[in-house]
């Protein structure tokens, strides 16, 4: 395990502090723009990390994630429009406090609770990741095949909406990953004679297209800034008495955020709403919820900031991202030739140390940056959307070109954006598709290597206990989610037939 001393030595041997603060600032600004989620804010930055060293790149992306979780609460509290999905629960009491002239207090509670949740999540990340990754050291190619299949089925089954659509999205993602040169025989697959496709389609292009370009398309035609009424706000951190009152919802938010972060596909939004409900249930003043309760702001903000760290646990331990933002962070790892998992701890411990230290700086730093960046956020959310759309499109296309100096890549991103837009219309989730693109090479190569080891005998997948266990769990997940889906359809059909 990377020692604490080694980790903190990075503070003065690398530019980790300015990088973390830069990522944090970008994250707060991106999160504060309604419609620009944490994953989109990260995806916009992803191509720019190419020119950085791996540690700086990962710290920049992780800090952006942390910043975006706080940034999302700013428009949620001020203009009743959550900047990110996970800030939706903050709207209820946050905006009510603004209406009562307590916008500064609400933002202060959000900032303080976000810091508390972020620190707790970070401790959980450090404590849980390394032991879990040690477990993965016992993995054979067969186990990795089982893990890949389990990751795909769990994400497909547990992401919001229909598990069938999640499964279809995962398969489509895998189809995209089969384009290019076959890793074992060297035969070209599905390139249609195009030299640009020989090396395949990079996951980063799919991510930027799905998350950022499709969001621009969705927002196309919505004119003007929101009906802003707040022109200046001064953040006020809670006093000692208020801090004491917030301890209970913060504890609830931290606990739920930890559990939801570790579960793939759950994410900050579910954690925020669950925490809000539980905080209300356990509060001494439940009647205040919905009417501007400080606890109603603290619980969801603690939860979604905890998730920002704990969602990285399955990513770092097994290489399976549990949320869209973690998937974009995985893109950052892959862009620098790093594969998350146990080997990362042994071969690139400095990156992990950097991630921990950078996240710590970003979490603490948000108390300072949160104050300083507020005027910029207010100015930005007041800008007409058309300008923002123009600048975001320019950033996407400039950043993507900088990856390989390829105009073909720009076309791939735009086509991925179109596919993402269609997926949104028809209700297909993105995360399984991204995971399909990322995990397909692992699944295919592990499967084929296993068969080579066993001279073509499929019994090797049953003989490997870990693989067998993972495949059984995957099959159970799939069966139960399908059963649940068809039961729900049958039930809704019956209830509508009974309705006159």
């Amino acid at each position, binding site marked *: 395990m990377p020692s604490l001393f080694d980790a903190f030595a990075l503070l003065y041997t690398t530019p980790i502090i300015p990088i973390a603060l830069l990522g944090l600032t970008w994250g707060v600004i991106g999160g504060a723009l309604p419609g620009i989620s944490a994953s989109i804010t990260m995806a916009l930055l992803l191509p720019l990390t190419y020119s950085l060293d791996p540690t700086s790149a990962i710290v920049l992306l992780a800090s952006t994630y942390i910043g975006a979780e706080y940034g999302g609460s700013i428009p949620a509290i001020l203009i009743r429009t959550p900047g990110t999905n996970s800030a939706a629960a903050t709207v209820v009491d946050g905006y009510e406090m603004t209406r009562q002239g307590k916008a500064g207090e609400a933002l202060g509670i959000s900032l303080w609770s976000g810091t508390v949740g972020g620190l707790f999540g970070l401790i959980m990340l450090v404590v849980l990741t390394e032991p879990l990754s040690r477990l993965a050291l016992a993995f054979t190619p067969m186990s990795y095949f089982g893990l890949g299949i389990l990751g795909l089925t769990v994400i497909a089954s547990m992401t919001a909406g229909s598990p069938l659509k999640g499964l*279809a999205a995962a398969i489509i993602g895998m189809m995209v990953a089969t384009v290019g040169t076959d890793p074992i025989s060297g035969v070209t*697959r599905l390139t249609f004679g195009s030299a640009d496709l020989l090396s395949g389609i990079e996951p980063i292009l799919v991510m930027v297209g799905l998350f950022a370009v499709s969001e621009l*398309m*969705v927002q*196309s035609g919505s004119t003007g800034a929101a009906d802003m009424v707040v022109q200046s706000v001064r953040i006020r951190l809670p006093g000692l008495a208020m801090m004491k009152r917030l301890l209970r919802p913060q504890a609830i938010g931290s606990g739920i955020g930890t559990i939801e972060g570790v579960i793939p596909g759950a994410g900050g939004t579910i954690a925020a709403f669950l925490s809000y409900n539980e905080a209300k249930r356990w509060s001494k003043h439940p009647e205040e919820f919905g009417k501007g309760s400080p606890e109603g702001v603290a619980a969801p903000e603690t939860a979604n900031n905890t998730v920002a760290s704990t969602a990285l646990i399955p990513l770092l331990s097994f290489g399976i991202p549990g949320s869209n933002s973690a998937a974009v962070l995985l893109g950052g790892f892959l862009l620098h030739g790093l594969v998350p998992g146990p080997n990362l701890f042994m071969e690139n411990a400095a990156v992990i140390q950097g991630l921990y230290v950078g996240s710590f700086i970003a979490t603490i730093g948000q108390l300072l940056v949160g104050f300083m960046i507020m005027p910029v956020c207010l100015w930005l959310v007041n800008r007409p959307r058309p*300008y923002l759309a123009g600048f975001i*499109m320019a950033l996407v296309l400039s950043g993507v070109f900088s990856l390989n100096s390829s*105009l073909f890549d720009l076309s791939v991103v735009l086509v991925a954006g179109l596919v993402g837009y269609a997926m949104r*219309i028809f209700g297909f989730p993105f995360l399984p598709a991204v995971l399909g693109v990322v995990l397909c090479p692992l699944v295919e190569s592990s499967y084929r290597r296993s*068969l080579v080891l066993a001279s073509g005998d499929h019994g090797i997948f049953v003989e490997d206990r870990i693989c067998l266990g993972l495949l059984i769990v995957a099959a159970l997940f799939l069966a139960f989610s399908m059963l649940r889906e068809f039961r729900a359809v049958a039930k809704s059909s019956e209830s509508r037939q009974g309705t006159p």
Partner: protein
Amino acid sequence: MNKDLISGIGLCLLALAYFAASRTIAVSTLEDDFGPHGLPNILAIALGLTGVLLAVRGYLAKPRLQSVAESAAPSPHGKPLRAVGLLAIGFAYVLIVDKLGYAVSIALLIAGVAWYEGLRLTLRLAAVAVGGAALFWLIFVRLLEVAQPTGLLF
């Protein structure tokens, strides 16, 4: 037809097209038992099955009657044709950037998208586009030293 039924049929068609494309993968003397076409074949079959299940689910689910308020509400996904128009501006940038160069093309992109999204073509818009292009050029070309297309003229 409901969205699930359309999605299911679309997935089946995609599976068929992918399967047909995977038949063109060459046979190699170096390939293992599974071969480079093994996974594409499995994926095509899996997507086809998923498409059939989705279509059946869509067929079984009775269409829900929309209330007047629901049917009058704007779509959360915006207007598809308008969204595709925005994408066309992106493709136009791809076509012109190696001819006009990065700085000019990115200014046109910013102005074009902002105009398409509802702003009028004014001096202010032009100034923002030129200023934005200068900012992007400074960040990418000067600060990050990332090569951007130079074009025939600039």
